[in-house]
């Protein structure tokens, strides 16, 4: 136990550098996946065959490929066609695109949960599609979408560890490096696990709170 505490004192400063990158990758990939996912959902909702077909195909392809392979593709293959990204950029883009497929399904479910009659009523008082989306669909869909959105953020936080495979020195990668040089696997990976848990618990509680709040009404 005392070995764990002294070890923790030595390793934590280095692991915290990893935490910063973990949070950066998570935050930006959440934003990217949300924006992209919303775009796919709108394209599918538009019922314009070309847009809807593109979105659906994109989602199917993305969901059928492991995230780690997508990351390798963006980081190792893209330079061959002249697109050089830093590891962090590649990680954010890869994770953001991969998760946009799941976000899109979530958003689509929220949009489609709104009764068609309301949309017709909104049209019948002269609202355009944009206004219908903003005034009728979005305010109601947000309540439906928020709890699963919280779960997605938790999953993205944990899956940000995948970018360690393309050399991003985030939490998991820092842990691996320390463990490899100190052989203190027990202390290092216990710390890494505890830090992930500490980061995700507030999100878990927030999601549960949202679920309870919105299931009442």
């Amino acid at each position: 136990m005392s070995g764990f505490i002294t070890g923790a004192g030595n390793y934590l400063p280095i692991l915290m550098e990893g935490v910063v990158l973990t949070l950066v990758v998570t935050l930006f990939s959440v934003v990217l996946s949300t924006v992209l996912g919303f775009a796919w959902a709108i394209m599918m909702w538009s019922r314009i065959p070309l847009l809807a077909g593109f979105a659906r195909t994109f989602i199917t392809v993305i969901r059928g490929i492991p995230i780690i392979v997508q990351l390798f593709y963006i980081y190792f293959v893209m330079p061959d066609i002249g697109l050089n990204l830093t590891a962090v950029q590649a990680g954010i883009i890869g994770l953001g695109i991969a998760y946009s497929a799941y976000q899109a399904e979530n958003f689509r479910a929220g949009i489609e949960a709104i009764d068609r009659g309301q949309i017709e009523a909104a049209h019948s008082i002269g609202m355009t599609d944009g206004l219908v989306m903003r005034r009728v669909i979005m305010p109601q869909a947000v309540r439906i979408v928020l709890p699963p959105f919280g779960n997605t953020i938790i999953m993205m936080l944990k899956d940000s560890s995948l970018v360690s495979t393309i050399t991003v020195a985030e939490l998991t990668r820092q842990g691996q490096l320390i463990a490899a040089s100190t052989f203190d696997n027990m202390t290092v990976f216990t710390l890494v696990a505890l830090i992930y848990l500490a980061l995700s618990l507030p999100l878990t509680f927030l999601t549960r709170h949202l679920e309870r709040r919105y299931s009442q009404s």
Partner: protein
Amino acid sequence: MISVQDIRKSFGTFEVIKGVSFEVDKGEVVCIIGPSGSGKSTILRCINGLETYDSGAITVEGTKVDPADRSIAKLRTQVSMVFQRFNLFPHRSAIENVMEGPVYVKGMKRAEARDLAASLLEKVGLAGKYDSFPGQLSGGQQHRVAIARALAMQPRAILFDEPTSALDPELVGEVLSVMRDVAAEGMTMVVVTHEMGFARAVADRVLFLESGTIVEQGPPQDILRNPQHPRTQDFLHRVIHPMD
């Protein structure tokens, strides 16, 4: 002001409207009656551009109703619709439901829209219910909010799609009396209804529709009291004496 000329529409291979023509003059109340599946609601939805039609033409004050054209949104501000299932916005209070169109479609100032909405809710007998949400209102009350919402657009005409068929019988009267008041103020109305009493009292003209064609039309006293066509006679008999 509303002109329907020989419109046809099919769902797949099934032709629901087989060449229907009629005109509605300004201030006129036209009731469309007929068995379910006869195409009554579909015609109404075509007039509001919620449904496309395959051939023929619908014009409102000379402007063609084309659901695919940008002009449709503007046209809908002139022809409002009240739905069978009311279709209020459940996340907004009664008064917000009524204000929504004036504020966001017509760009009216909120204070002004609020005054307008309050006066309309008062008119439909809901003066104390401004801040109630649709879920807290009875079916009849929700329906009257929906009528106020349609009136708030200050439309040239209002279309009513089976306005009472989703209501409990004891709530039908309150909705019909509001509609009668609206008609008395000279509003142009097209009403798809099963309420023969309402048609008799308020309609200027009744159209009997069956299998996508107008079988018979005329003043309510002629159509409802003394129908000429055997199919109209049969339908009215079944509506008035359902147990026979």
